[in-house]
């Protein structure tokens, strides 16, 4: 082992290699790594942001859905109520119509009965007058006794 010029040559090589690494190898590598670190950090932050946004919108959607569900229930109940009301109204109207018709029929019936009774009375009266006429033959002058006959007719 003898120290000689080799030492100087190796020192020069060493200096050149160090200079080269300092100048051309380390900085671009560092830049790439730091840039990637920043990208990853940004990505993680964005993911976190997205997660919270999703959570928030999920909560919002849930609120909207439950509100809609409530409103739908309300509308359904209202519709049911309205339906029942309509049926009741229809029933009431039908009943009133029926009553009205029944009353009309009854009135007509009564009128017819009274008419029939009237015509019956007239006929009975006529029969009675005819009978009396037959009995009295000529004695009874229809014209003379008309007043009496109509009185009799009314009493029957």
């Amino acid at each position, binding site marked *: 082992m003898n120290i000689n010029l080799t*030492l100087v040559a190796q020192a020069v090589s060493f200096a050149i290699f160090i200079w080269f690494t300092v100048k051309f190898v380390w900085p671009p590598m560092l830049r790439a790594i730091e840039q990637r670190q920043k990208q990853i950090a940004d990505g993680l932050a964005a993911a976190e942001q997205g997660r919270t946004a999703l959570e928030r919108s999920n909560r919002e959607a849930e609120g909207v859905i439950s509100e809609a569900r409530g409103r739908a229930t309300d509308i359904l109940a209202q519709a049911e109520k309205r339906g029942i009301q309509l049926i009741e109204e229809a029933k009431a109207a039908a009943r009133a119509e029926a009553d009205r018709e029944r009353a009309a029929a009854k009135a007509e019936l009564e009128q017819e009965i009274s008419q029939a009774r009237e015509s019956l009375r007239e006929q009975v009266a006529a029969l009675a007058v005819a009978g009396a006429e037959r009995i009295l033959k000529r004695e009874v002058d229809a014209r003379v006794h008309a007043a009496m006959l109509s009185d009799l007719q009314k009493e029957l």
Partner: protein
Amino acid sequence: MSSESTLTPTEYIGHHLTNFTAQTGQGSFWTLHVDSVVMALVMGVLGIGFLWLATRGATAGVPGRRQAFVELVFGFIDDQVKGIFHGDRHSFVAPAALTVFVWVLLMNAMDFLPVDIMAWIYEHVFHLHNWRQVPTADVNTTFALALSVWFLMIYFSIKVKGVGGFIHELFCAPFGGHPLLWPANLLFNLVEYISKPLSHSLRLYGNMYAGEIIFLLLWLWAATGLAGTVFGAILGAGWAIFHILIVVLQAFIFMMLTVVYLAMAHESH
């Protein structure tokens, strides 16, 4: 191995531990270990070039396989530096640590290549008789790295604390500012400044050199007969597996010490 049919153990080991040299001037200092320099350059260009290629197409989006691997290494180094150095590590300390780790790891990993097969290739393909392939098993390489770190240490010490602060620390730390303690402080600091590059470089060098020697001894045994071949192969495999740990561990320790020394230079006492 050389072309001679018989080779003594001394010649065998000596052959594997002889550098390919070039003489650039008078005196032993002007010898250049061409193999260490070339292998170190190849490893550095491969390693740093791979990192550079990965950063060329670096995207902040989904990384490709190569980029993911480089980012793994990057993150590992960055984490280590973050725990030790509290300052703007991205401007120098962390990239320097990455360079040291990748480069030293690759240079250490040359130890995995089987020496005799590689020697044959160097001999017959490249016509190189002596070629040591592990640059970190050459004390010049480890010393070059440790001394560079040492100079960086002093540079940052002066840059952060100023010349006055640096000299003040030499005399007043760690025992205190009393004038009577100045010699003791100075002595302590000198010992520290001398021991740092020595321990830094020799730890790596010793480990890699010893690993090489143990491989060589095992291959020597493997050449002695059937039993030697069997046991040499088994022990060689074992040592190679253990060596994976040493190679990575020594690269890691060398990088950590670099970071620690540079971090200490930034701290004021």
